């Protein structure tokens, strides 16, 4: 007899939904797109369903990656911070760029979100390859993907070192000697690499998770290598269950090949979700959304569930019990419709089937992912 571990379920809350024309669907409130209360309600719903995380995409340009008529985005890290005090349990995954953003800034931003959320921050590593973003900064020409990912790899290395630069017990507040910290436990990182030279330490004390989870989207050999080296959570975008199992095996093999324990990685599949009372109704919804897009435009990629909540629960159960993936990033086509369906219909079925938790196992996102809290790499062994 085998016990099926709980699957991991995240929710992509970017924009108005994963479908580029979601903002035009009935019931959407386009004027509230940038309203933090709207986001707060979505997070509360996700938290009610004890989902592992919510995720926010980001980019410095106005939607270069999505063929959408929607325009405008807020800074994802600050959105996560804004949502932190009024939520608990749920992980907050913010995308932050590495091509133009200084790793020192990334490190303290994610650490600070981890402090304000008491251990629920995570960083999805972003990189920029477009002329458009390069022109917004005017510092260097656009980089191809391999080059941008190589830079991201080094940036993650720097950030992770900065996250370890304070040992957990560096703050001593020793009144008799007047010392606030034990400076032997605050370390320069002295990173002198190909792209960055960063002295360190971080200005921010080690955060509740120590190392907030690093999320990497895989879609190329270079991003696979980045994930294998640096990621805790690896997002794949498979076509179907078989493809998911193959991609998961590939990620785990790549991690093992660089000396990591593959069980320390969580491989989660993107799943585009359109719910309906019947499969026919769901298909109708998607057809209506697609009809709003320019003719011939692709509105989604990879595996999609277009159907009932029961069928989505069955699919998640199937992929989970067969070990195809460690979890999912559910990408609701339209947030204002599909998030409620996921929370109120899909999740109860998954709990009843014994493939999803009913409570959070701890307080931090690492707890939820089943990842131990690492000791700082600079910590000296205690005899």
């Amino acid at each position: 007899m085998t016990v099926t571990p709980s699957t991991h379920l995240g929710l992509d809350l970017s924009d108005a939904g994963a479908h580029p024309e979601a903002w035009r669907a009935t019931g959407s409130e386009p004027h509230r797109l940038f309203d933090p209360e709207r986001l707060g309600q979505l997070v509360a719903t996700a938290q009610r369903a004890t989902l592992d995380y919510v995720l926010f995409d980001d980019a410095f340009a106005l939607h270069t990656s999505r063929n959408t008529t929607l325009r405008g985005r807020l800074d994802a890290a600050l959105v996560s911070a804004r949502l932190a005090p009024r939520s608990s349990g749920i992980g907050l995954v913010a995308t932050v760029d590495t091509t133009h953003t200084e790793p020192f800034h990334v490190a303290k931003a994610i650490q600070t979100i981890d402090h304000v959320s008491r251990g629920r921050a995570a960083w999805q590593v972003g990189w920029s390859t477009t002329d458009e973003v390069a022109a917004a900064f005017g510092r260097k020409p656009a980089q191809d993907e391999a080059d941008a990912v190589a830079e991201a790899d080094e940036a993650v290395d720097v950030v992770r070192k900065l996250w370890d630069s304070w040992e957990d017990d560096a703050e001593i507040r020793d009144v008799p000697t007047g010392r606030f910290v034990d400076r032997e436990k605050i370390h320069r990182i002295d990173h002198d690499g190909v792209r960055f030279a960063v002295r360190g330490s971080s200005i921010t004390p080690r955060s509740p998770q120590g190392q907030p989870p690093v999320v990497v989207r895989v879609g190329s050999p270079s991003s696979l290598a980045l994930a294998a080296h640096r990621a805790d959570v690896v997002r794949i975008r498979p076509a179907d269950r078989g493809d998911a199992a193959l991609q998961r095996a590939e990620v785990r093999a790549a991690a093992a090949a660089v000396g990591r324990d593959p069980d320390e990685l969580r491989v989660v599949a993107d799943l585009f979700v359109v719910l309906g009372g019947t499969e026919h109704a769901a298909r109708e919804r998607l057809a209506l959304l697609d009809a709003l897009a320019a003719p011939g435009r692709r509105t989604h990629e990879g595996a999609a569930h277009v159907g009932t909540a029961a069928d989505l629960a069955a699919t998640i159960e199937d992929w989970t019990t067969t070990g195809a993936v460690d979890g999912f990033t559910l990408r609701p086509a339209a947030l204002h419709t599909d998030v409620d369906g996921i929370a109120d219909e899909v999740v109860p079925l998954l709990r009843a089937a014994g493939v999803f938790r009913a409570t959070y196992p701890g307080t931090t996102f690492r707890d939820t992912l089943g990842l131990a809290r690492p000791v700082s790499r600079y910590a000296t062994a205690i005899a």
Partner: protein
Amino acid sequence: MTNRPRKQIHLGAHFPGVNSTTVWTEPDSGSQIDFASFEHLARKAEDARLDFFFLAEGLRLREHKGEIFDLDVVGRPDTLPVLAALAAVTDRLGLVGTINTTFNEPWEIARQFATLDVLSGGRAAWNLVTSSDAFTGANFRRGGFLPYAERYERAAELVAVARALWDSWDDDAVLGDRAAGAFLRDGAVRDVEHAGPHFRVRGTFPTPRGPQGHPVLFQAGDSADGRDFAAATADVVFSMHSTFEDGQAFYRDVKGRLAALGRTEESLKILPATTVVLGDTLADAQERARVIRRQQVSGPGAIAFLEQVWGVDLTSYDPEGPLPDVEPDVDNADITRGRVRHVKDPRPVVAQWRARAEAEGLSIRDLVIAVTTRGGFVGTPTQVADDIDRAVQEDASDGFILVPHLTPHGLDDVLDRVVPLLQERGSFRTEYSGPTLRDHLGLDRPAPGRTRTAHLDQQPVG
């Protein structure tokens, strides 16, 4: 006194910093990093109807004699995520954050402040500071690249670009016409193109204009360059001139620069940082102030302070004994890094301090306490309310940024006991008049699309 109407006082609550003002050795000194500390001060400040909460920034830990300086509070959060989180637990309070202009790019920082303004419903403010030092630069990919003389030039250009980016979206840019598929109003978002000595920026800004149009801009530099920059650019000057006479002189100087720039005196607020110590009697308050000063200047802290001036190791001296008899090392200006050294040539300073210590019978610690004590209000609540009100009504300032010595409860008594007295005399609001920090400070809201400079150009988005 003239017959003009009573000026309204503006007050900010400064989160305790990583310097000797902050006392951490007391049992009731709380965490400088736990969000509960930030939340307490912010909520308390909002309950008292203060204008804003203020959070400073650090980009490298201070070092002394080549090691992390461990006698003051060490470690702080990133500024903007804390302010974004505070936006969730407050409704009206302004949220002011220091961000260095030297180690940030305009596109990114403009986007972060626009986001904070949107997420807070119009309460964002940016305290601009400049730096050029390679010590801080060692944490960034371009290192200490900026010549000292160019730091305000870069800051001014960065602000000009940020303003162009904020102005590139109209206020009502979101049309949200679902049927027509028009999310934005036609022509409501314009491309920005800028080419200057420090920045080349071109593109369509991805983030909507905040409720304030532009976040409020604070500026803290005190040099002649800093004052010019403030007069030309800032909405608020965060000054260090908290004594009455100094304050009046500074106030006249900076406000006097405005007319030539086409600005009214009301368009720039001058808010010195200050401390408050209360007591039931004046003598009681003075005794409390004396105790706090001794907590702030510990024996080792006093020695470290002298070492900054002497430029040599003085740990063999007793802080409760007389001043060191060794001569200062004139060339070792870098003994402390990550904080500005104010003394260029230490020899006259040392001579003066020795004379004073001799004349007044001061130990090292006594002397350091004496030379680092700056103004601040000490007295009964009524006396402090009188002094604050007088400073504002007689143009020594437009209000104050209150700096506590304890985290997070250090301002509780001022907010509970002094603010109501200011309200009683009609000098401080009893209710917020509007939702935004611009409303609190009585600042105009900039119109969109107004930015037009020699090298700034906006094109409709095609």
